[in-house]
């Protein structure tokens, strides 16, 4: 496994939000974390990248214990992270956003990476000198993805990558995510509110409820799992058909 957590408990201050959760993802695989609001999906991801307090458990990257390392070191070791909101630098240009993400790479390598990433995301290619704060919601999300790729990640953690996007744009983002995982053999873990889309676009999924993992299955199995629908119905007011 490229990235795995072992009995990880994460929270903020003295508050433990995620309790004893073990997840794993391998290269080329897309794994989704689903669960109702407040189930701890984002907190788990933040714990992995060192942005939330780890109470106990371990984070292993290629079987190397990286628990508690500073965020910037984890990023440089190959864990890419795209937060849910405020995931671009609005006062920097698109190009500067990409450059900052590869700030520790040598110049030529960074230029090459930016070129590669631009070829993947043509939508922002012609907006390189535009201030990132002026981009549309979808373009911002694409920039955030592009920015994470400049850092040459082996694992990519995406927190609600389609939040507040139109259904069309959300589909587009998921297509990109699958392509990135498949083409670059990157392990991708997504925390996602849009359960149907997350399950359709991932290989495996973890269901979190109240900070605990209650189910791990292939996403296909979860899609047709009546128990999962029941779990969801208990916590969210959604129609069974929408799953």
């Amino acid at each position: 496994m490229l990235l795995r957590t072992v009995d990880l408990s994460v929270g903020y201050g003295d508050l433990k939000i995620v309790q004893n959760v073990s997840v794993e993802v391998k290269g080329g695989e897309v794994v989704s974390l689903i669960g109702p609001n407040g189930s701890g999906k984002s907190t788990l991801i933040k714990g992995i990248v060192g942005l939330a307090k780890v109470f106990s458990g371990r984070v292993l990257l290629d079987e190397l214990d990286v628990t508690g390392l500073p965020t910037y070191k984890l990023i440089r070791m190959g864990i890419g992270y795209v937060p849910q909101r405020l995931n671009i630098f609005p006062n920097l240009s698109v190009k500067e956003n990409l450059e900052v993400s590869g700030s520790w790479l040598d110049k030529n390598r960074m230029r090459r990476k930016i070129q590669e990433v631009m070829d993947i995301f043509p939508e922002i290619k012609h907006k390189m000198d535009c201030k990132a704060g002026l981009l549309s919601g979808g373009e911002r999300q694409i920039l955030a993805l592009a920015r994470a790729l400049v850092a040459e990640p082996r694992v990519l953690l995406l927190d609600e990558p389609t939040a507040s996007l139109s259904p069309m744009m959300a589909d587009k983002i998921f297509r990109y995510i699958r392509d990135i995982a498949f083409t670059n053999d990157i392990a991708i873990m997504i925390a996602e509110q849009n359960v149907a889309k997350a399950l359709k676009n991932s290989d495996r999924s973890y269901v979190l409820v109240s900070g605990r993992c209650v189910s791990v299955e292939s996403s296909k199995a979860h899609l047709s799992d009546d128990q999962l629908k029941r779990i969801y119905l208990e916590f969210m007011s959604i129609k069974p058909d929408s799953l």
Partner: protein
Amino acid sequence: MYTLNLPQIFFNSIITGSIFMLAAIGLSLSYSLSRFPNFAHAEYITLGGYIGFLLFEQLNMHLYIAFTASFLVSGLLSLLSYTVLFKPLQDRGAPMVYLMVASIGLGITIRHIIQQIWGGSPLTIRAVWPRWDIGPLTISGLYLYLIATVISTSIVLHLLLASTIIGKCIRAVSDNIELASSVGVNVDNVSRFVWFVGGGLAGLSGFFMVAIANAIPLLGWRLLIPAFAVTVLGGVGSFYGALIAAYTLGFAENISVIGLTALGLPTDLKMLVFFITIVVVLLAKPEGIIASIRRGLRV
């Protein structure tokens, strides 16, 4: 009859604005990165002034050596205070008010140490600077040094922030510290760099203040209120905003002195300009008027 020498007022305003700019840039940048107003910044200004006085006046060293030493010593003091005091406090989750109080305590301590070493009486650099009379304008060589310093500092800072990776990382950290860390920026190293350069520039403003007027332990404290006004008016963390705000307030101060003199009021009341600026901006546009205008113009 009170006659106004407008060219001289204009020139003096540029000098005042230049001092404000050097004093405020570090305060503004460190504020935007570390998210608290550092009152000890006043003492980086004061120490820079006294170091300049020690080397240039007491030890008769060359002006450039005194100038460089002022930058380095104040920069190192700033770096040290960030590394030893403020960063550990932040790592322990200290809120802004704790950091602010710690900075006031640190400032008082440094000021008293300075007073123990050099005493509380005003100390003056006795060097005679070359002067030129150009029409109604009297220009001192010292002022030209100051203007040259500010122009070169502005160019270097502009190039640094706009064209280098460290500069872009500074802007990124200033924009969103958590995101910067999430994209692999070593926020701590960036902050150290900014604290060093900001403290160094504050030291230079102290050096010029001592050369223009004299050295007193409250030197930095007197420049701190204008520096805060520049920071607030220009927008916290905005280098270009601070640059414009420094000269705007430089002009405002000189014009207020003329007004107060004409009204027969004490010129010390000129400090009101800065207090009023801070209060009005915080009430009307807390993000800074100049920063807002620049955002509106998309520049």
